[in-house]
């Protein structure tokens, strides 16, 4: 066998493998890519979902301390919480939030209750990305496995296209639709490759870490997972349930401000509040580091106990703590977040065009692809459309609406309808409906809430602009998703 023949067969095999993974995992990868793109600005979505909450740019240690009895009074008839989290306000979400095991409450700058945190739509979007709304551990493992599949898709894609780098700047966007689609798929694929590989492998790391923790726990700690996690994220002290006054979190915050002036607290965590064994952790971001934060620990009196060492400890700790921000793009402010959104959209286009190209190929071979094409159009445009519809449901019915059930129910019904009546679910019709729904949704939001903070207005403007681009009335498009008709091609 000559080298050329061998190379050619390798290319063909890689292409076949590329197609196989894409067909098996494409729809779920697309769902994770869409929601991942949204999750980059998760806090902005939370603010958008509840734009009428009083905001405060900062929270003093005294106000943080004062918020605890206020929240406890609010939850007087509920089971006492074993954990208490105070989320510090920042530019993206200028609202402190106190979360207990029961509920979460926005507080104002004085520590008074400002409203219930009810961002069920934002939480659903995040859960779709993290664990596909499945039980957390199994869902995260599945998402991690899909990350591995995406990594294999990326590498087989490069192997399958020997000229992919040679043609790296060739994009015939206005050529024959299939050619244009192929160019979009390959060019965006090659230039976002470093980002996509990084994001998919960090995502796989996060999701599949559960399997490694489980293996290590079974092998070394009698099945207990906490000691395994403690090697990286630090251990909790012995629990002592004897009653005690509330922990002095104000002193802990003041100590961090005095001893680590560059650190910016993001969360205050109280474990086993109002017990002798309670202890406080202040999680603080370090500028120009990828870690999500360093964890500073304090006893109930607010005396400093030490830090975990995520910022300067063992390399494994630093690396593990860096994967989250690297994955979500939360390490250099809005510019990097916008870049991540652009790359996320590119991944959506790559995924959508990949299956569309395969469908087109089948059509050229004479297969009737009408139902599959309609189902794929429903997947590509229908997933964001269903997200818009579920957002409308949440605004109309409040935060307790069953948004997760509504999402899967609407998506499932849409897919069934697409298979039953494919003519109604053409690519053009679906994208038009999505574009109009986004524009209408943003306008309704603006009218309903009367604009709101600049950040909320910016989100609505972004939705409007995106909706207009997707709708693109009057413009011919190459068609990112399904082929326009399901009839077999005669060419």
């Amino acid at each position: 066998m000559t080298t050329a023949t061998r190379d050619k067969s390798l290319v063909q095999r890689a292409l076949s493998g590329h197609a196989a993974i894409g067909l098996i995992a494409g729809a779920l990868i697309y769902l994770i890519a869409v929601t991942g793109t949204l999750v980059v600005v998760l806090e902005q979505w939370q603010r958008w979902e509840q734009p009428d909450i009083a905001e405060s740019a900062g929270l003093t240690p005294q106000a943080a301390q004062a918020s605890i009895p206020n929240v406890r009074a609010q939850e007087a008839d509920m089971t006492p919480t074993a954990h208490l989290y105070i989320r510090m306000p920042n530019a993206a979400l200028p609202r402190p939030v106190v979360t207990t095991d029961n509920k979460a409450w926005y507080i104002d700058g004085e520590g008074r209750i400002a409203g219930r945190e009810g961002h069920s739509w934002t939480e659903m979007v995040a859960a779709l990305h993290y664990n596909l709304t499945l039980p957390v551990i199994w869902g995260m493992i599945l998402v991690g496995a899909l990350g591995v599949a995406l990594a294999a898709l990326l590498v087989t894609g490069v192997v399958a296209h020997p000229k992919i780098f040679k043609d790296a700047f060739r994009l015939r966007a206005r050529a024959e639709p299939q050619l244009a689609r192929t160019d979009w798929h390959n060019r965006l694929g090659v230039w976002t490759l470093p980002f996509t590989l990084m994001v998919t492998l960090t995502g796989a790391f996060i999701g599949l870490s559960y399997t490694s923790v489980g293996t290590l726990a079974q092998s070394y700690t009698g099945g207990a997972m906490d000691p395994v996690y403690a090697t990286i994220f630090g251990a909790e002290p012995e629990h002592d349930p004897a009653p005690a006054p509330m922990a002095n979190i104000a002193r802990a915050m003041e100590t961090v401000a005095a001893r680590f002036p560059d650190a910016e607290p993001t969360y205050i965590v109280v474990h086993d509040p109002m017990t002798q064994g309670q202890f406080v952790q202040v999680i603080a971001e370090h500028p120009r580091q990828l870690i999500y934060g360093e964890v500073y620990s304090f006893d109930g009196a607010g005396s400093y106990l030490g830090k975990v060492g995520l910022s300067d400890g063992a390399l494994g700790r630093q690396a593990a703590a860096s994967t989250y921000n690297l994955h979500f793009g939360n390490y250099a402010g809005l510019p990097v977040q916008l870049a991540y959104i652009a790359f996320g959209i590119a991944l959506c286009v790559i995924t959508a065009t990949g299956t569309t190209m395969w469908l087109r190929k089948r059509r050229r071979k004479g297969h009737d692809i009408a139902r599959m094409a309609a189902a794929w159009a429903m997947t590509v445009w229908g997933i964001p459309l269903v997200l818009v519809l579920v957002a409308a449901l949440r605004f109309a019915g409040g935060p307790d609406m069953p948004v997760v059930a509504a999402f899967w129910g609407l998506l499932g019904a849409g897919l069934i309808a697409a298979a039953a009546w494919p003519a109604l679910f053409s690519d053009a019709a679906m994208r038009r409906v999505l574009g109009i729904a986004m524009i209408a949704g943003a306008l309704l939001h603006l009218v309903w809430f009367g604009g709101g903070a600049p950040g909320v207005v910016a989100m609505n403007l972004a939705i409007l602009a995106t909706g207009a681009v997707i709708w693109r009335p009057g413009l011919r498009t190459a068609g990112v998703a399904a082929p326009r008709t399901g009839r077999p091609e005669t060419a």
Partner: protein
Amino acid sequence: MIAAPLLLILVAVALVRAGWGRDRRLSHGGWALGVGALIWCALLDGAWGVAVGATLGVAAAMAIVLFVAATAPARRSPQRAGAPRSDRMATLSTRPADLALGRRLAVFALTVPVSFLAAQWFAFACNAAMKGDAPLEANSVATMFMVQPLVWAGLMTWQLCQRGPAEMIRPPLLVAAIGALIWIFA
């Protein structure tokens, strides 16, 4: 000051574009400049600097690609254009249905559960080799976290470039065997 290497990254991407398909020296110079600028970012701000620099580089390249798309000429008439170039497109085998289904199930079993287990075993062996007889600690645990998906993705890629299920058995077996050797000598 990270602004300087970031600026160099923009220049590097512009050079790569300018030399692409024309002057290789220009293109290679752009790549070299980009790598040098990323090293400068690393020296200034460590991993954070590399992440920011790489993000900027990818964003700049994507912006150029979008510009190319926006300025692409309209398609030629079908007569002049002739048949579209035969784009490489994915196909799956067209074997008889029952044979194809069995083959696909075998491929799935080999690339998902079998390779997952091989990668998990390999990562576990790496953990054991790193920690030796000592208790679990951060470096060996984090290494296991990272090695598992990397090896699994590598295995899946390797397997899917094989001719058929029979050839797909070898990669996970080999990785598992290497894992066993590491375990024995750990």
